[in-house]
């Protein structure tokens, strides 16, 4: 549902208007107020920060309509839009409607589930009723809800003449004529009718060129009204069809001709031909070809195969540290785990005597339909995921039914919709950009496209149909625009922009191997997170100055028993070799939570994230711990190795680790096995208690590495995979920044160093503030290294400290985020 924000100079006025609107809608509409300023003596004024907070309070991708009283309220609101996440921008609508009337009307329209466009239109027409009452002529584009339609009176039959049909402008002309005559107007097309004074109803009638439509008028002015409507129709409803093609109706407004506007989903520019992907619905033969039981078994096996594949993809994504992808695969698994889905499909095979494919697809479409009908937009978006997994199963049942995404040459891929699994399979070499008719900025497809660095414009709506296969277009993913007929000058300009971006990337790449220092000479170590030897060979080339987190889980997965000491030594040595003597931090096995390993039996737990995981398990599995720590020590004889332990929350745990390591060293000494007795030992800081005990813990380690992914979840008590609470688990939380500061201060006071190995470390938006907080090392997935190093080199550590102090003083995540982004306002 659309949210509403009321911006006023006066808190009292804003609240009063809100109460008025809430009364009309029984409090069903989210309305937030931004009134007055932070000055008790002179509270009248407008505050962009308050506007920003109010928007965040009611934001959803459905949209927010913002009403302002006057004067600086407008500029404050515009400033707030600049400070908010640019992805929100297309969903935020500044509304010029009168404040009180507009708010009430907008709320009523929002309550009935109106789109942003209809809410804006309703609000903008809000003065009409008042004018009518006072006997003042209506402005031409005004709208009002009239009494229920009637079919009495006179009638005019018409065929819609104009190319684009009755889109917004002609609809407004009809409505305004209706408003000028003393008559009630009802439009009818087929079974459906619309009140001629309600612009939304008129537009929703969806009258297209060639449609037969009837106009009924009743009242004293009926004849005059129908005469003027006939005249308007003669004038092609005011449209000039000889002019160049304009973008079709219902589209977000485009800045110029030949530009389609959609939702900016992933940044970047691409110039190429369009490859239009057909949406051939899968061809399904419903005839039974084998006994019912065999069909049923085929279905169960197909589902199982897809679930196994998903499970494997999920594990891989987790190891890569790619939580977004992992979440998507998890969501897909949940869909298939729903027993009802197979049971109903299996029953349908027997009951309706149809093939497994037909029964399955009917179930999938029904389920997708239920999602689409859900009131919550996030749930609606999941229909795509249902169809996606559904199709994967179908492809198992009917080999060859998946659509081919293999492209022979670089082009711009256009499809009505792309499934997340399809998107993740695209080859960025050949897919220069993605265009879709459906979808929003938060759809899984959009998220994956961003992750893969493929520019994308989604939600092109009606404009999509004007794209032709083979047509050369320019896509500006950052703006959400598609230039359908780019001029030579535009192409030259965009090519220059692409070249400049490429040149910049190349400069980054040539300096990426050099160690990173701030502009005033402070060394910041930039390391990579790896999952195994396979990742290692290109790390130096990509700029890694070491490995800051070697996740050992992969070594233990996908096999029947734990790797032996010798096997581990080989694996650790291979990574160390590739890093040319740079330090490697090996993290001992972090099992539990959501990371399961078949031969490690942890009884099911109600709450695995708060359960037997990480060091808690490790210390209890002596044979496994012994083999691993011996392997690490033995590798340290040859290579620059450090060790670190996950999930340490108490001093006792750390002492237990030390005691265990002493035991192992004694063993090695007795065997005369060589190892490095000065190998650095550290712990991850990811349990909040470790933050609070950092001073005591720091005395007993060489370094800390802050695992910000888990730390954020535990600190905020918010699961990052749970969409309803993800806003809590952002890296911008003041509590998280304060925690990092405390850890760094405690460590530095004792001469110990601190790294960060969560996703935060690779987020360029946070680099400056992390340097300012005093962090010594940043460890990230390798592709982020070049950009982060570039920022480090441009940052002065003195500046960064001042900046960090500023940021630490901000009380809310929203303000932190705005401050970090404001550098580029």
């Amino acid at each position: 549902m659309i949210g509403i924000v009321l911006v006023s100079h006066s808190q009292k006025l804003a609240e009063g208007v809100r109460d008025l609107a809430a009364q009309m809608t029984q409090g069903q509409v989210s309305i937030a107020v931004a009134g007055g300023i932070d000055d008790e003596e002179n509270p009248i004024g407008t505050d962009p920060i308050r506007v920003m907070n109010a928007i965040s309070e009611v934001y959803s991708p459905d949209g927010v309509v913002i009403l302002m009283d006057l004067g600086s309220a407008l500029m404050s609101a515009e400033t707030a839009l600049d400070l908010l996440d640019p992805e929100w921008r297309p969903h935020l609508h500044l509304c010029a409607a009168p404040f009180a009337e507009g708010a009430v009307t907008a709320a009523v329209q929002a309550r009935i589930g109106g789109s942003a466009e209809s809410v804006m239109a309703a609000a903008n027409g809000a003065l009409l009723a008042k004018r009518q009452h006072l006997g003042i002529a209506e402005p031409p584009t005004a709208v009002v809800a009239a009494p229920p339609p009637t079919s009495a009176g006179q009638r005019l039959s018409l065929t819609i003449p104009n190319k684009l049909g009755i889109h917004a402008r002609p609809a407004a002309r009809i409505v305004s004529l209706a408003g000028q005559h003393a008559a009630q107007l009802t439009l009818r097309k087929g079974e459906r009718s619309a009140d001629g004074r309600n612009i939304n109803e008129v537009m929703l009638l969806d009258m297209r060129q060639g449609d037969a439509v009837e106009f009924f008028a009743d009242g004293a002015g009926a004849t005059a009204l129908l005469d003027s409507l006939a005249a308007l129709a003669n004038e092609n409803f005011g449209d000039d069809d000889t002019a160049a093609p304009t973008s079709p109706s219902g589209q977000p407004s485009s800045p110029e001709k030949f530009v389609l506007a959609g939702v900016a989903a992933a940044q970047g520019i691409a110039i190429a031909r369009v490859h239009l992907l057909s949406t051939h619905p899968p061809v399904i033969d419903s005839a039974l070809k084998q006994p019912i039981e065999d069909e049923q078994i085929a279905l169960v096996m197909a589902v199982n195969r897809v679930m196994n594949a998903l499970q494997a993809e999920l594990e891989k994504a987790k190891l890569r540290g790619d939580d977004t992808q992992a979440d998507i695969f998890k969501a897909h698994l949940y869909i298939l785990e729903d027993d009802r889905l197979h049971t109903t499909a299996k029953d349908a095979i027997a009951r309706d005597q149809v093939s497994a494919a037909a029964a399955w697809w009917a179930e999938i479409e029904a389920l997708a339909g239920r999602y689409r009908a859900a009131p919550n937009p996030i749930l609606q978006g999941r229909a795509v995921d249902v169809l996606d997994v559904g199709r994967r199963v179908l492809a198992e049942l009917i080999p060859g039914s998946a659509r081919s995404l293999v492209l022979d040459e670089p082009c711009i891929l256009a499809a009505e919709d792309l499934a997340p699994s399809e998107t993740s399979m695209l080859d960025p070499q050949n897919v220069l950009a993605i265009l879709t008719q459906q979808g929003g900025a938060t759809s899984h497809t959009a998220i994956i496209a961003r992750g893969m660095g493929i520019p994308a414009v989604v939600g092109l709506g009606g404009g999509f149909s004007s794209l032709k296969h083979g047509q050369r277009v320019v896509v500006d993913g950052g703006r959400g625009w598609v230039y359908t007929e780019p001029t030579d000058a535009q192409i030259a300009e965009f090519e220059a922009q692409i070249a400049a971006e490429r040149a910049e990337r190349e400069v980054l790449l040539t300096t990426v191997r050099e160690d990173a220092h701030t502009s005033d000479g402070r060394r910041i170590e930039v390391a990579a997170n790896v999952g195994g030897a396979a990742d290692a060979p290109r790390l130096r080339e990509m700029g890694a100055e070491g490995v800051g987190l070697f996740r050992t889980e992969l070594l233990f997965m996908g096999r029947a028993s734990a790797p032996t000491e010798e096997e581990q030594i080989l694996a650790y040595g291979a990574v160390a070799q590739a890093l040319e003597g740079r330090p490697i931090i090996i993290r001992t096995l972090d099992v539990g939570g959501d990371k399961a390993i078949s031969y490690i039996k942890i009884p099911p737990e109600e709450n695995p994230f708060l359960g037997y995981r990480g060091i808690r398990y490790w210390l209890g599995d002596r044979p496994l711990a012994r083999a691993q720590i011996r392997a690490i020590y033995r590798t340290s004889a040859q290579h620059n190795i450090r060790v670190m332990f996950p999930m340490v929350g108490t001093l006792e745990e750390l002492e237990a680790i030390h005691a265990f390591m002493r035991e192992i060293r004694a063993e090695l000494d007795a065997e005369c096995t060589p190892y490095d007795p000065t190998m650095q030992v550290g712990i991850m800081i990811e349990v909040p208690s470790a933050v609070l005990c950092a001073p005591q813990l720091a005395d007993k380690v060489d370094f800390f590495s802050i695992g910000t992914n888990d730390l954020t979840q535990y600190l905020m008590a918010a699961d990052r995979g749970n969409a309803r609470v993800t806003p809590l688990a952002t890296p911008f939380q003041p509590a998280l920044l304060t925690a990092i500061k405390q850890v760094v201060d405690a460590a530095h006071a004792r001469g110990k160093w601190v790294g960060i190995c969560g996703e935060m470390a690779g987020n360029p938006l946070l680099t400056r503030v992390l340097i300012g907080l005093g962090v010594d090392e940043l460890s990230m997935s390798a592709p982020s290294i070049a950009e982060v190093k570039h920022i480090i080199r441009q940052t002065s550590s003195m500046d960064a400290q001042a900046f960090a102090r500023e940021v630490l003083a901000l009380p809310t995540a929203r303000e932190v985020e705005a401050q970090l982004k404001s550098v580029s306002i």
Partner: protein
Amino acid sequence: MSDVITKAQVITWLENCAALLETQKAYLTELDAAIGDGDHGLNMARGFGKVKEKLPSMADASIGSILNTSGMALISSVGGASGPLYGTFFMRASTAVQARQELEPMDLVKLMEQGIEGVVQRGRAEVGEKTMLDALIPALNALKSQLEAGAGLSDALDACVAAAEAGVRSTIPLVAKKGRASYLGERSVGHQDPGATSATLILGLLRDVVKGSGVS
């Protein structure tokens, strides 16, 4: 006096702005009361008061980050149209000078150019509409042409402030086309624009600091 503006001078300038706008609160408010809602003095004093609070923590920061922080402080505290306008001015200006610790004369030109561009984008006003731009734009033009003609920074700033002062006076006969005062239409004629006045005060302080006559 050397021909650069140091970071210390920038800080002193902002401190002086806070002090002067506090003492000129009543005057600016009176100007705004004639054609607006009578809050410009309060707004500016509150805003620069907030800027002043931030300055002590900025001793180690670059000029860019000082200006950026000041802009953010103005945006979040002024309360009137001048908040987003001056705030945008400073934030945009900061991108022109980035991590600098000192400003060359032409840096000042760039700083003002970008800042003014921000004001224009935010307020969509132009010269002659009775706004702060009537002081800022002539001031920038004078500064730039003097420097290009080879004048020293001090002389160029004298010309800059003189142009701003002339600009303020030029607002008196104008009909307001933007902001609160535009509600008054013809009745705004005969009054001096408060925003142009505050802009001129602020430029005057910059000149004083550069010439060494500003108090520290």
